[in-house]
């Protein structure tokens, strides 16, 4: 019962901040609302019992990536406030894309309702997760999901090196 209240409150706040992100004129305010959004998503993770993921969400996403967004926003001389060129905020392409994504979500949701959950995978119990959250994730990451993990690391490395190369060309 308490969980349901918490979930709905958090979700409402998350949606509210997401809407604020795209609707505010000032870009810096936009980024700040994004941070708030991420923090509440982290709270949602805690609700789901994924404490490690929640902390990583705060540390990496809110505390790292969005900081870099903020750097870029502040350094590049954007006209302040960034006005939307299209005052009516309608764009046929945008609408089409949004509808396509919505259709995708609906299909996935329906599929999820219709198809039963796979019985094979041994999921650790909630009690075990609460104490050994990190260990369980570690095991899963390094055994079942090793290849995606390594691929992701290489992607990040390439991105970092690419950024440095691009920046150095200026010197």
């Amino acid at each position, binding site marked *: 019962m308490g969980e349901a209240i918490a979930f709905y409150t958090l979700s409402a706040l998350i949606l509210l901040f997401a809407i604020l992100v795209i609707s505010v004129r000032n870009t810096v305010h936009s980024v700040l609302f994004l941070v708030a959004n991420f923090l509440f998503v982290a709270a949602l993770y805690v609700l789901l019992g994924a404490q490690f993921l929640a902390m990583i969400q705060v540390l990496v996403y809110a505390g790292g990536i969005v900081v870099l967004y903020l750097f870029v926003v502040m350094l590049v001389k954007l006209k302040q406030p960034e006005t939307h060129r299209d005052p009516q905020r309608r764009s046929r392409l945008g609408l089409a894309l949004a509808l396509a994504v919505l259709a995708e979500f609906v299909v996935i949701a329906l599929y999820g309702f219709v198809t039963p959950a796979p019985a094979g995978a041994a999921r650790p119990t909630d009690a075990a997760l609460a104490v050994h959250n990190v260990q369980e994730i570690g095991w899963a990451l390094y055994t079942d999901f090793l290849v995606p993990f390594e691929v992701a690391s290489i992607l990040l490395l390439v991105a970092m090196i690419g950024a440095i190369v691009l920046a150095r060309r*200026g010197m």
Partner: protein
Amino acid sequence: MAAGSVESMATDATRPMFDTDELVINMGPQHPATHGVLRVVLKLDGETVVDADVVIGYLHRGIEKLSENRDWTQIILLTDRMDYVAAATNNLAYCETVEKLLSLEVPRRARYFRTILAELQRIASHLVWLGSHAMDIGAVTVFLYCLRERELVLDLFEEYCGARLTYNAMRVGGLPLDVPPGWDRRVLQFCDVLLEKMVEYETLLTQNRIWLERTRDVGVISGPAAVAIGLSGPLLRASGIPRDIRKDEPYAAYGEFTFDIPVGTRGDTYDRYLVRLEEFRQSVRIIRQAIEGLPEGPVIGKVPRLIKPPAGETYHANEAPKGELGFFIASDGKSTSPYRLRVRPPSFCNLQGLPQLVRGHLVADVIALIGTIDIVLGEVDR
């Protein structure tokens, strides 16, 4: 963090993605680290200094013009206020120039005593230099330790002439007062204390990794370049040129003492630091020799009641702590004031080297470089 470094990211060669201007920053005249009212206009490219323009004159009091209306003894009071950190050296340089004009003989005791005072001034001036230079780079404690030793020097001067900053300690022909009783013993005690405390300064700075990184290869100037600009004093000696007026054209009693001239090799800020540190020890050496050999006799020579040098002009220079301090005096033989008094202040000439020293360095080094030149605005502006 320069926005300009990304400009060539644009594939479109006609319009760069980001604007790059050269940033012009104004430093001073009120700034905690410019040792007075000095204004430096820096042109920056990102963090690197492209050019520096020094603007002076904020402390100009017209000393040279004032001295045309003062008589020869009154001018000594004016000279106190030029390099106010080492006032007795100014007094000495001026008095010796007038003595040269008058062809006046200064008694031996006076010359020895003058040397002692001048070397004490060198120590005091270098203490202020070390303290403020270290403080600008961040080592605040050294500043207070240096001031603690400087207090001892000021106490010695107070005992002698009653003043701590503007001494009026010399007269044309000698000194106004004789050595107070027991003063020489106290000077020797001070020398011992200083050498002891210098170990503290060296421990804090000389091998300190951060100090080395902030001063090594910062502001390198070669010997020939230094001579070309007209630098003098520790700046010149750190760049490898062994020029010291105390050895090359001895004045006061320097000719009678043995001492060494520390000379550097690389001409960077660290070398200038080492040179001045060694000058402490050499000053102590000179003072000890002078006290031991202090002859008896009068402290002032046969000076006429009314000082009226014959018509003529002369230039005489001292090795002030900051460099070559010279006085050019032209007398017309008739009045009781000089016709023209011109000072060659070491800080003024050394400061001309700042743009060259600073070019290519980062903004944070500008402070270190102003400190390493060791300027006193009173001297620069007069």
